[in-house]
């Protein structure tokens, strides 16, 4: 299963001899000691048999990271992170580490799966239950792999890519998000463990949606995931990230980096449904989701489209962006961010217009409930050379309850007179009359909220691939449970 790594708690529990599922592998050999220093980075790099240049790049990032301040501009509040109090490398967990059956899985988690309508077998896979179901996935994955190979699409883990396609990795890694970009991304550059790699050759339309689901070998990529997707001239790929079911992960810090490169006439569609553990209703626990995602539309007529549904994590700090270098290139950002209880989300995008006649669209919907805070933060920049650039931005916030906050902080910088920028934002609450109307037609309060919020988010949800959209809609309802009444 994707992106669930050994958790700090589990490792600690093992160290204390209390881990209830037992632990059969040799910890000392597969887990680097706590903390981060150059030796740990060398250890990670050596474990992965990396070439010299990559180790050097990691070390360069690490040295830079030491000097970088924490970003403080986001509207999120959390105690300082003790970077030395975390593990930066632990080997992927084997099947025997997981729960033996669904009986051992947190019933709360199963209840959510059920609401999402995920089949039992799927539930087992998602919960990390080591069962034969995995073999089905493997066989499914093999079928797909074969199909991809036929058209020349490379889809593998980052580690495999470093070994098998070093020239591609070397050319593009860090070319969109440089090692010195920001504190979180730089930490990732120094310490990334694994991730996905996609290369779509010239003129190829990837025959299926790619997702971590089918990337069995690259599972367990951990808290410092690094993804690189390259769409060569005239190609198209749609990539689905994450998983629509909540992945229980007690890791405090999830600092991933995603880089996309679209060459002439290429298009990348990147969809995310993020539902990491948000902490409990008292704000205890949950993931810090500090992710740097950026796409470069390098070629003429290229297009990058980000769609995200963010309902999980205690703190989300994430700005999937587009650098519109190629003339006529197109950037899109469609986002739904839902926060409840004590969650905090500061998310948005940057659209940097460099090429001529570039255009971008931003549709962001923020929904805040409970005691949460949801912020849209976005930058639209029209560079002097971006003749005829166009941007349209719409940000709407919906408040549920009177203890939450919804904020909109757009930055608009235009340096070309022929550029046209339009920004609209609204904040309102769910109308009492809307609620009553739905209830009069037989819907319960929670059903009514889910229906109205789904309507509010429609422009974004319809951008998701079909199978994702259905589950995302259900997720909208589930994540707002207990927010009314």
């Amino acid at each position, binding site marked *: 299963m994707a992106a669930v790594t050994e958790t700090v708690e589990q490792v600690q529990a093992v160290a204390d001899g209390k881990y209830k599922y037992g632990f059969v592998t040799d910890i000392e050999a597969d887990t680097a000691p706590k903390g981060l220093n150059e030796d740990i980075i060398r250890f990670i790099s050596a474990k992965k048999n990396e070439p010299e240049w990559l180790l050097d790049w990691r070390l360069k990032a690490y040295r830079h990271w030491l000097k970088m301040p924490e970003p403080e501009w986001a509207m999120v509040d959390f105690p300082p992170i003790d970077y030395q109090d975390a593990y930066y490398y632990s080997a992927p967990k084997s099947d025997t580490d997981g729960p033996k059956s669904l009986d051992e899985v947190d019933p709360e988690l199963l209840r959510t799966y059920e609401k999402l309508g995920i089949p039992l077998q799927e539930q087992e896979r998602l919960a990390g239950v080591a069962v034969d179901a995995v073999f089905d996935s493997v066989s499914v994955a093999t079928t797909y792999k074969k199909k991809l190979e036929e058209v020349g699409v490379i889809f593998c883990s980052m580690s495999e890519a470093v070994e098998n396609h070093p020239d591609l990795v070397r050319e593009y890694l860090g070319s969109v998000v440089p090692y010195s970009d920001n504190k979180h991304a730089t930490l990732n550059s120094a310490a990334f463990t694994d991730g996905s790699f996609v290369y779509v050759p010239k003129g190829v339309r990837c025959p299926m949606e790619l997702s971590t689901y089918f990337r069995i070998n690259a599972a367990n990529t951990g808290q410092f995931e690094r993804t690189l997707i390259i769409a060569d001239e005239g190609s198209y790929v749609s990539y689905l990230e994450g998983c629509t079911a909540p992945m229980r992960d007690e890791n405090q810090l999830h600092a991933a980096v995603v880089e996309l490169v679209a060459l002439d006439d290429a298009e990348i569609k990147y969809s995310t449904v993020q539902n990491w553990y948000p902490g409990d209703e008292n704000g205890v626990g949950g993931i810090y989701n500090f992710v740097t995602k950026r796409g470069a539309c390098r070629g003429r007529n290229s297009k990058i489209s980000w769609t995200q549904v963010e309902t999980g994590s205690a703190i989300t700090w994430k700005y999937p962006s587009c650098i519109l270098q190629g003339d006529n290139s197109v950037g899109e950002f469609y986002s739904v961010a839902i926060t409840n209880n004590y969650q905090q989300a500061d998310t948005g995008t940057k659209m940097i217009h460099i090429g001529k006649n570039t255009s971008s669209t931003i549709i962001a919907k923020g929904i805040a409930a409970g005691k949460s805070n949801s912020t849209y933060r976005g930058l639209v920049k029209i560079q002097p050379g971006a003749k005829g650039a166009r941007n349209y931005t719409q940000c709407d916030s919906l408040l549920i309850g009177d203890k939450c906050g919804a904020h909109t902080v757009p930055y608009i910088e235009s340096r070309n007179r022929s550029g046209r920028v339009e920004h609209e934002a609204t904040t309102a609450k769910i*109308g*009492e*009359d*809307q609620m*009553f*109307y*739905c*209830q*009069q*037609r*037989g*819907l*319960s*309060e929670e*059903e009514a909220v889910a*229906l*109205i919020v*789904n*309507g*509010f*988010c*429609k*422009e974004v949800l319809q951008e998701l691939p079909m199978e994702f959209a259905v589950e995302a809609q259900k997720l909208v309802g589930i994540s707002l449970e207990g927010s009314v009444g």
Partner: protein
Amino acid sequence: MLEIKDLHVTVDGAEILKGIDLAIAPGEVHAIMGPNGSGKSTLSYVLAGRDGYEVTGGSILYKGEDLLEMAPEERAAAGVFLAFQYPIEIPGVASMTFLKTALNAVRKQRGESELDAMQFLKLVREKAKLLNVTDDMLKRAVNVGFSGGEKKRNEVLQMAVLNPTLAVLDETDSGLDIDALKVVADGVNALRGPDRSMLVITHYQRLLDYIVPDRVHVLAHGRIARSGGKELAHELEAKGYAEFGANEAA
């Protein structure tokens, strides 16, 4: 079917209904007429269970059960339907989706099986045809950008689909021209039957030419000032509400 006894209702501290008594038997259509501000809409909201309407005295029994104890969606499931005077707009939610969600929620509460997409589509198409509700309207967001007539037809379509046993029509004629009124009235009349009761609330007698009531009540100053047969409506049309001391501008 419906039995209202000595109902007192307060809104924002002001008593609007001051002791209403009303009994509607199965299959009957009653009309409530009255000047603006007499409490007509208050009565419809109290029946549907809207927040902010405080019942300070009296009772409402619906099919022998205490209606006031039920949540709005429970009332809907039990068969109480309110056609809103001003139907609410819900951006982004297609009418079709709304209707399907509502119907299945109601069916679920009634212990009936949910309809699948095909069965539902068939049902809606059938009902929509009678009311001139086009597929295009069903695809659009609930009441968003609808004309006055479209909104009212949409209300009656919802009524037809949800199949209530007590329908409360609040000023369903307001804002309609005569042709639109006929379409809506035909839709309502098609739903009349021995097991379904209706309470038609209106300011004007005009609607009652098309939906002919069994009983007519005049509501003034929060009380039922007079009751009678359908001829009472004509009398009111001729004389106005002056004899009830109503201030038309209220």
